[in-house]
C-alpha cells in the first residue's frame, strides 16, 4: 500500500542500503507530499535511522537515487535540515545552548562570516520555541536528556529550511513539551514546510501525523494516516512482536505471523 504523489518534495527510487554486505534497506520506492507532517514508523532495526541517514548522504547507497525538491541533495542542502539522535555527539563539549543553536545558522554564512545580530535573533527565537530560553547560556552537559534533544530541535529550526528530517526527536522529552513542539511543527507545515519524524509511540502517531511511512527493511506502506495505520498493515510491519501491537489496543488477533521476519 504505497501512495505515490505528484510534485513530491522527496523522491526515493529503488533505494538499497547495505552494511557490511548485509542489506538494511531493500528496494525503497517512495514519494512524499509537500506541506505535511510525516511519521516514519517501524520496529527496532527496521532501518528508519538508516533511511534518514542515506537521504542526508551520511551512509552510501548500494543502489537507487534520492531527490529532494526534484534535485540532488548537494544542490539543495541549505533547504534541508536534520535532527540527529542525541547520542551522536559528546555533550561534554565546551559550548552553551546558544552556541549550539547558532550552528544552525552556519549554512547561511560563507567562509569568514561570523553570525550577525539577525542570526542571533533567529537562534533566540528558536530556543524560545522549544521552551529553553531560561537555559540560554547553560553549558550543554548540564542539561537533561530531553533538554539536550530540544537544543537539537532548536538548532534544526534555526536553519529555516523547507524540509526537516528528525531522528527520534522526542526521546526523553516530556509529554507537555512534545505536544507543544508538535503543535509548532504543524504550524510550520501549514506554511508549506515538510517535517519527517521517526516516531516510536503508535498511540500518538495517528494524532500527530497526517502521513505515515511504515518501514521494516522494506517499505510496507506510505500514505495518509487514516489509510496506513490499520491493524493489517501494522501487523505486517511489526511481524510477530505482539507486545508492541498490544499498545495499539490489541487490534490484532493472535496466530498467523507474517513471513517478513522469517529467514
Amino acid at each position, binding site marked *: 500500500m504505497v501512495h505515490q504523489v505528484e510534485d513530491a518534495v522527496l523522491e526515493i527510487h529503488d533505494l538499497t542500503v547495505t552494511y557490511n554486505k548485509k542489506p538494511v534497506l531493500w528496494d525503497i520506492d517512495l514519494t512524499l507530499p509537500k506541506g505535511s507532517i510525516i511519521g516514519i514508523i517501524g520496529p527496532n532495526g527496521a532501518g528508519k535511522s538508516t533511511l534518514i*541517514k542515506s537521504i*542526508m*548522504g*551520511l551512509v552510501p547507497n548500494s543502489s537507487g537515487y534520492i531527490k529532494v525538491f526534484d534535485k540532488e541533495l*548537494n544542490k539543495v*542542502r*541549505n533547504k*534541508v*535540515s*536534520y535532527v*540527529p539522535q542525541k547520542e*551522536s*555527539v*559528546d555533550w561534554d*563539549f*565546551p*559550548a*552553551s545552548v546558544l*552556541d*549550539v543553536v547558532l*550552528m*544552525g545558522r*552556519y*549554512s547561511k*554564512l560563507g*567562509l*569568514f*562570516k*561570523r553570525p550577525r545580530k539577525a542570526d542571533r535573533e533567529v537562534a533566540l527565537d528558536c530556543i524560545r520555541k522549544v521552551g529553553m530560553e531560561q537555559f540560554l547560556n547553560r*553549558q550543554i*552537559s548540564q542539561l537533561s536528556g530531553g533538554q539536550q534533544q530540544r537544543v537539537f530541535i532548536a*538548532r534544526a529550526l534555526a*536553519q529555516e529550511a523547507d524540509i526537516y528530517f528528525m531522528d527520534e526527536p522526542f526521546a526523553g522529552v516530556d509529554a507537555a513539551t512534545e505536544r507543544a513542539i508538535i503543535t509548532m511543527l504543524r504550524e510550520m507545515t501549514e506554511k508549506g514546510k515538510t517535517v519527517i519524524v521517526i516516531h516510536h509511540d503508535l498511540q500518538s502517531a495517528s494524532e500527530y501525523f497526517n502521513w505515515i511511512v511504515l518501514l521494516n527493511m522494506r517499505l510496507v506502506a506510505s500514505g495518509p494516516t487514516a489509510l496506513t495505520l490499520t491493524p493489517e498493515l501494522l501487523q505486517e510491519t511489526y511481524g510477530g512482536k505482539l507486545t508492541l501491537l498490544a499498545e495499539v489496543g490489541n487490534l490484532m488477533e493472535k496466530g498467523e505471523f507474517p513471513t517478513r521476519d522469517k529467514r
Partner: protein
Amino acid sequence: MNAFWIILTGCLVSISCGLLGCYLVLRKMAMVGDAISHAVLPGIVFALLLTGVRDSFTMLIGAGIIGVFTTFLIEFFHRKGNLQTDASIGVTFTWLFALGVILISLFAGQIDLDQECVLYGEIAYVPIDLWILDSGEVMGPRAVYISGIVLIIVVTFIIIGYKELLATTFDPDYAVCIGISTALWHYLLMGAVSLTTVASFESVGAILVVALLIAPPATAYLLTENFKFMLLITTVLGIITSISGYYLAVWLDGSIAGAMSTIAGLLFALAFLFSPKEGILTKSWRNKEQNGTLSKSF
C-alpha cells in the same frame, strides 16, 4: 638576549601547538598528535635526501605531506579494515617512525640529522642558529622566524575556519548535512598539526611536542566551559609554560624542553586538583562546606 630568544621560541611553539591541540582534544584525537609527531620523521629524512640541504622550508613541506598521509592511513585502516582507531594509530605511526630511524641510520653519513635531536630537541641552540642575510646582516635566530610564521598560519587558519572547525568538531554528521566538508577540514587540521609539529620538533623534540599539543588544552578544558575561553586559556598556559620552564631549567641546569613539559604537566595537575568546577579538592571542599551549613541549620 639568549634567554629572550629561547623563551620567545618556546612561546611561539607552545601557542601554535596548544591552539591546534584544543581541536585534537575535543575530537578525541589527542593521540593522533602523538602519531603525527613521530611519523613525520621519514618525511624529514626524505626531504633532506632529495634536496640535500637542511633547509627548514623543504623539511616543513616533506613532513607536512607525511603528516597528512599518516592521518589518511589511520582513517583508511580504521574504515576499510574495521580496526579500532587506537590500534590503527599504533600500527601506523610506529611503522613510519621506524622507517625514519632506518633511513637515518642508512644515510647517516650523507645527512646532517641527529636522532637524539629529533627525539628530544634542543631549544638551547636556538640563539646560535642565526639567519644571516647575504649582505651580512644578522636577522636573529632562524627558529623564531619559522615558529612565528607557523603561528601566523595557525591563527589565520583558525580565524578563517572557526565556524567550520567548530561544527565539524562538535557534530560531524550535522556539519555534513549543512554542506561543510568534514574530510576537507579534517585534513586541513591534520596538515596544520603536521606543520606545527615539524616546526616545533627542532626546539622541543618529537616526544615532548605531544606534551605541548595536549597538556595545555587538557588543562584549559578543565578550567572553562566556553570554547573561545579554552583557546585563550591555552594560549596563556603556553606562555606560562615557556617562561617558567626556561627558568626551571636554568635553576636545575637541565634540559629546557624537559622542564617546559614538566611545567605543563604540573599546571595540569593544579587544574585537576583546584579547578573551580571540576577540581577534585574543590569538589570535596564544596561538599564539606555544604554539609557544614546543613548541620548548622539543624
